[in-house]
């Protein structure tokens, strides 16, 4: 439980939120992608987080296992059905002339982006506060 554990934990949150932002950017960028190497339209991707289990944290005489930050557990693809648009001229159209567009909703992506940005800011605030705590501790004994 060093001085830098807050920095490490908040740093893992920063990395995780940046990845979430990257995934949201990818979703928005591919909102109209009808052709992927695996076939079919692009599918909305989202990230799943899980805690990093750390060595037990000793609180006084007790030891408690505490989460030591966050990591990206997996990236999952949204299995919602694609948006069908009638466009017979599109090379990706099916025999009926319908084109499957990605199941990406711009409003959802924008709100996800805002949430990631706010979570990032919260972690940065956490880092700054813990740094100012450490600086206060260094003032002990200074006249």
């Amino acid at each position: 439980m060093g001085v830098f554990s807050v920095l490490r934990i908040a740093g893992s949150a920063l990395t995780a939120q940046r990845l979430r932002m990257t995934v949201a950017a990818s979703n928005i960028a591919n909102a109209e992608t009808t052709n992927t190497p695996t076939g079919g339209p692009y599918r909305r991707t989202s990230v799943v987080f899980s805690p990093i289990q750390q060595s037990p944290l000793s609180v006084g005489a007790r030891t408690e296992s505490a989460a030591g930050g966050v990591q990206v557990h997996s990236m999952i693809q949204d299995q919602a059905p694609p948006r069908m648009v009638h466009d017979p001229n599109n090379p990706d159209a099916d025999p009926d002339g319908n084109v499957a567009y990605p199941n990406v909703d711009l409003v959802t992506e924008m709100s996800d982006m805002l949430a990631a940005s706010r979570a990032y800011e919260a972690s940065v605030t956490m880092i700054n506060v813990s740094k100012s705590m450490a600086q206060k501790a260094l003032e002990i004994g200074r006249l």
Partner: protein
Amino acid sequence: MDPVSIGKRLLEVSQPTPSGQGASKLADSFGHALAGAVDSLDQTQRAADDGAMKLAVGDQVELHDVMLAQDRASMSLELAVQVRNKLVEAYQEIMRMQV
């Protein structure tokens, strides 16, 4: 370190030894501790430098990781400066002592 073990340590140090070995042992362990502290300080500074360099040449490195490394380095340096101030203070206090 709990108060009991500190007390034991002090007792060991204050035991009279024939040829002043206690003092030299104490100075030795203190020197080791100081060298270790300076070494880890150097490591944090190197990590910060490394991160800044990687960022500058365009390596795959997260911006916030570099900033965190620099924060770590500056906090370690501040701690080292405070410890040094305390040591100098103690030294001057002893030098001012009337004998």
